[in-house]
C-alpha cells in the first residue's frame, strides 16, 4: 500500500495518490497533496474549489457535477484547469481528499 | 516369391491398412469435431454488423463467406487473391481426382482434361505464394508457428508429387484406379508399383489423419461461427433469443 508522508504522519493512499479514508483529510494534508499535482501554492481560489468539493461530498457522498462546481464557485472550466492542471476530477478531488470519480468519466 | 514381391506385398498391406485407418480417422474425426461444434450452445446473440435480418440471409452470408472470402477481400487484396486461387485450384484438382474414384467417370471430369495441368500448377503456385507471404512479411512471420509451416509443406509435397506422377513419371492410371476402387469396394488389391505415386498417396493419407485435429478444420468450422451464422433479430417480436443453457 503506498503512503504519503506529511510532517512525520503517514497516510494511506491508493495507487493514484488519492487518500483512502476521506475522513482523515485536513488542510495541511491538502497542501502536501497539492505539491504532487503541480500546484505549488493553494490560493484563495483553490480553497474555494476545495471547500465546495468537501462540502458537497460531505452532504452527498460523491463529487458534484462539473457543471455545478463551475456554477457554484463561479469559475469556468478553463479556470479550473488553470488552478488544477490535471482537472477537476483528478486534481481538485485528490487535493480535496475525495475518492477519485471513476466510471465512464 | 522374389524379394521384391515380398516388399511390394508388405507395402501393399501397409498402404491398405493406413488407407482404411486414415479414411476412418478422417470421417470419424470430422464427424466428431463438427457434431461437437453443432452441439455446443451459444449463450448470447452474437451477430456481427452488418448482419442479415433473416435466417435465409444468414445462410447466404455463410455461403458467401465459404465461396468468396469477402472479409479477406476487405482486409488484404493480395492475401485474398492468393487464398482464393489456392482454394479454387484445390477444389478443381480434387474434382478432377474423381476419375480415380468413379466408374464410369462423370463427363465433366473428362472434359477438364485440357485445363487440368493449369489448375495443378496454379495450386502449386498458390502454395508457394502463401509460403512466401508467411516468411516474407514481418507480421505473418511473427504469428506463424510450426503447424502452419507443416500444413503448407505437406500440401506442397502433395502438389509436387501429384504433378510429377501426372505429367512426368506417369503412374499407370489403370493400376491406380484399380487399387483405389479395390479399397472402396473392400476388395483391396496390390498397390501400383510406382514409388512416387506411393509417396503422393502417403502424404495424402497423412493429411487426412492430420486434418480433423488441426487448423485445417476451418473447412468445416467456418459453418459454425456465431458472428457469421446468426441473424440479427433481437428487436423482432417473437424472436427472443433464449440462452440454451437456461432452457
Amino acid at each position, binding site marked *: 500500500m503506498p503512503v504519503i508522508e506529511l510532517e512525520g504522519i503517514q497516510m494511506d493512499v491508493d495507487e493514484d495518490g488519492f487518500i483512502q479514508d476521506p475522513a482523515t483529510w485536513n488542510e495541511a494534508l491538502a497542501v502536501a497533496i497539492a505539491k504532487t499535482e503541480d500546484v505549488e501554492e493553494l490560493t484563495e481560489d483553490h480553497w474555494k474549489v476545495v471547500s465546495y468539493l468537501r462540502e458537497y461530498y460531505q452532504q452527498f457522498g460523491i463529487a458534484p457535477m462539473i457543471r455545478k462546481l463551475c456554477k457554484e464557485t463561479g469559475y469556468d472550466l478553463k479556470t479550473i484547469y488553470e488552478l488544477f492542471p490535471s482537472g477537476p476530477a483528478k486534481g481538485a478531488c485528490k487535493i480535496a481528499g475525495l475518492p477519485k470519480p471513476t*466510471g465512464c468519466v | 516369391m522374389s524379394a521384391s514381391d515380398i516388399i511390394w506385398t508388405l507395402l501393399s498391406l501397409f498402404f491398405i491398412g493406413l488407407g482404411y485407418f486414415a479414411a476412418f480417422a478422417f470421417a470419424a474425426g470430422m464427424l466428431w469435431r463438427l457434431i461437437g461444434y453443432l452441439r455446443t450452445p451459444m449463450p448470447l446473440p452474437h451477430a*456481427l454488423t452488418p448482419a442479415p435480418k433473416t435466417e435465409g440471409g444468414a445462410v447466404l452470408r455463410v455461403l458467401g463467406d465459404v465461396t468468396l472470402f469477402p*472479409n479477406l477481400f476487405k482486409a488484404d487484396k493480395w492475401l485474398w487473391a492468393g487464398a482464393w486461387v489456392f482454394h479454387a485450384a484445390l477444389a478443381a484438382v480434387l474434382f478432377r481426382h474423381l476419375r480415380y474414384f468413379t466408374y464410369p467417370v462423370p463427363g465433366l471430369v473428362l472434359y477438364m482434361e485440357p485445363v487440368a495441368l493449369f489448375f495443378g500448377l496454379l495450386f502449386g503456385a498458390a502454395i508457394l505464394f502463401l509460403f512466401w*507471404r508467411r516468411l516474407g512479411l514481418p507480421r*505473418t512471420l511473427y504469428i506463424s508457428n510450426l503447424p502452419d509451416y507443416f500444413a503448407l509443406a505437406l500440401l506442397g509435397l502433395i502438389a509436387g508429387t501429384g504433378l510429377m506422377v501426372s505429367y512426368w513419371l506417369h503412374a499407370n492410371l489403370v493400376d491406380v484406379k484399380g487399387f483405389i476402387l479395390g479399397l472402396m469396394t473392400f476388395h483391396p488389391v496390390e498397390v501400383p508399383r510406382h514409388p512416387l505415386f506411393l509417396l503422393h498417396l502417403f502424404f495424402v493419407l497423412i493429411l487426412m489423419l492430420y486434418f480433423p485435429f488441426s487448423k485445417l478444420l476451418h473447412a468445416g468450422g467456418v459453418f459454425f*461461427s*456465431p458472428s457469421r451464422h446468426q441473424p440479427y433479430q*433481437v428487436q423482432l417480436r417473437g424472436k427472443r433469443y433464449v*440462452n440454451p443453457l437456461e432452457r
Partner: protein
Amino acid sequence: MPKFDETPIIKDPAVNGVLRAPGLREHASTDVRCHPSKPKDTAAIDLPAELVPDWKERALAKFGELLEQNQALRVYMDICVRCGACTDKCQFFLGTGDPQNFPVARAELLRRVYRRYFTPAGLFPDLGAASDLDEDLLRKWYTYFYQCSECRRCSVFCPYGIDTAEITIAAREIMASIGVSTKYVTEVVAKVYQTGNNLGIPPAAWKDNCEFLEEEVLEETGLPIRFPVDEAGADILLVPPSADNFANTDTMIGYGKLFHYLGLSWTTSTYCNEGGNFGLFLNFANLQKVNRRIIDAARMLGVKTIIWGECGHAWRAGILTPTLSGPMDMFDPPYPYHISQFIVDMLRKGAFDGRLDKSANDDYLVTYHDPCNSARAGQLIEEPRQIIRAVCNRFVEMPPNTIREKTFCCGAGNGLLTDEIMPIRMAGGKPRAMAVKHTKANYLATVCAICKAQLPESMHYWDVPVKVGGVIDLLANALKL
C-alpha cells in the same frame, strides 16, 4: 508516459486515408497494466480477492466449462489459420507497434493453453504450438487481455468472423474466477450494486443533479423542462449512462428537451440509473445481474417502455436484455429501444417537421465517431447519421475504412478507461485521432459515454482541436422548443 511510435499512420490523408501499419516493436506495451482489484470490491461482486492457491486447476476447469458452453469460443479456438488478415487492424497494435497486440497473437495466448490441455497437440507442446499455463503466461493474459477493448474490429476482417472480443471475454472470465481482475472494472460493478450506477452517485445526489439541471434549463430557455426521478407511472424509463448526469450534462439536457418537446412522460430510476454494464468486461454472472436491474427498475416504476441512452456498451448489453433477463413482452415494442432509434422514428413520423433549425449548428463542422459497441454489436450505424443530417448543415465523414462497421475504438472502451494505462489509451486512440484530423471537423459527435470521456483526452494528446459531444446535444441545439 512511455511514448510509442508517433509517426502518422494515415498516409495520403487528402486522398483516401489509407492506413499504414507501423513496424513491429516487440514488448513495447508489455509493462502497461491496470491496477489489480481491491478486496472490498471483489467481495461485493462474488469474486476471489486474490490469486487462489489452486489457481491453475481452477482456471483450466473454468476454461473447460466455457468450451462446453460457448460455441463461439470453441470454434474460434480451433479454426484460426493465422493468415494475418487481422494483424494490421487493431488500434492497439497500430498505436503501440507491439505484435502481441495483433488480434491473432492475443488470441494465441489462450489458444496455446487450449492446445496444451484440450487437444492432442498438448502431447507434443513444442511441435504443436502449445504452452503450459504458468505464472508468466498468466501475467501476459492480464496485460494483453486488458489491452483489448473487445471492439470486434478484427472480426470484420477475419475470413471466419473470429471474434477476439469473445476470446478476451472468456479470458477475463477465467481470470476473474481465480482472483485476477482489475480495480477499475470491479470497483465500477461494485458501485452499481451499492448505488445503482457506475459512478456511484447516491440517490440524493442524483436528484440534486436533476434539480440543478432543471434550474439551468429554466434559466436558459424559460421553460419548465423536467428531469424526473423515480416517477411511478411514467411512460418511459430512460437508462442513460450515469456519466450523462455528471460530466456529459449537455447530453442529459438533450434528453430533457427532447421529451419535453414531444410532451412525453419519462423518468430515471435511482435503483437503476445506469445503462452501462461493466459485467460485460468481467464475467457472465455480473453481466446478467447488472442487466436484470434495468427490467426490475422498469417493473417497479410501471413504465410502458425502456429507452437506452447514448452509451455504446450499454446498447451491446441492452440488446441482450431479453436473453439475460427474460421476455420483455410486458413493455410496448419495439424493445430493446435505443434513443437514436426513437429519435429517427419520431423524425419519420414528422414530429420535428418545421421545428428544427439546422443553422443553429452552423458553427460546427460535424463528424461522427461510431462507437465500436453500438456499431459492431448493436447495428446502430444509420440512425445517428440520420439525426445529424436532420439537425446539421455541415456533416463530413471520416475515411471509409475508419467508420461504420470498420470503425476504430476510441481507445478506452470495455474496461480500459482508467488512468494508469494512459499510454495504451493514447496509443489506441491514435487511429481515431488521425482520422478526425483528416476531416478538419471541429465537432466530434458520438453516442457513447466512454468515448466522450476518452476522446477529449486523445484528441488533445494527438493535437486535434475538436469539441466532443453527443448526437442528441446537436438535436437539442437545433430544436425550436
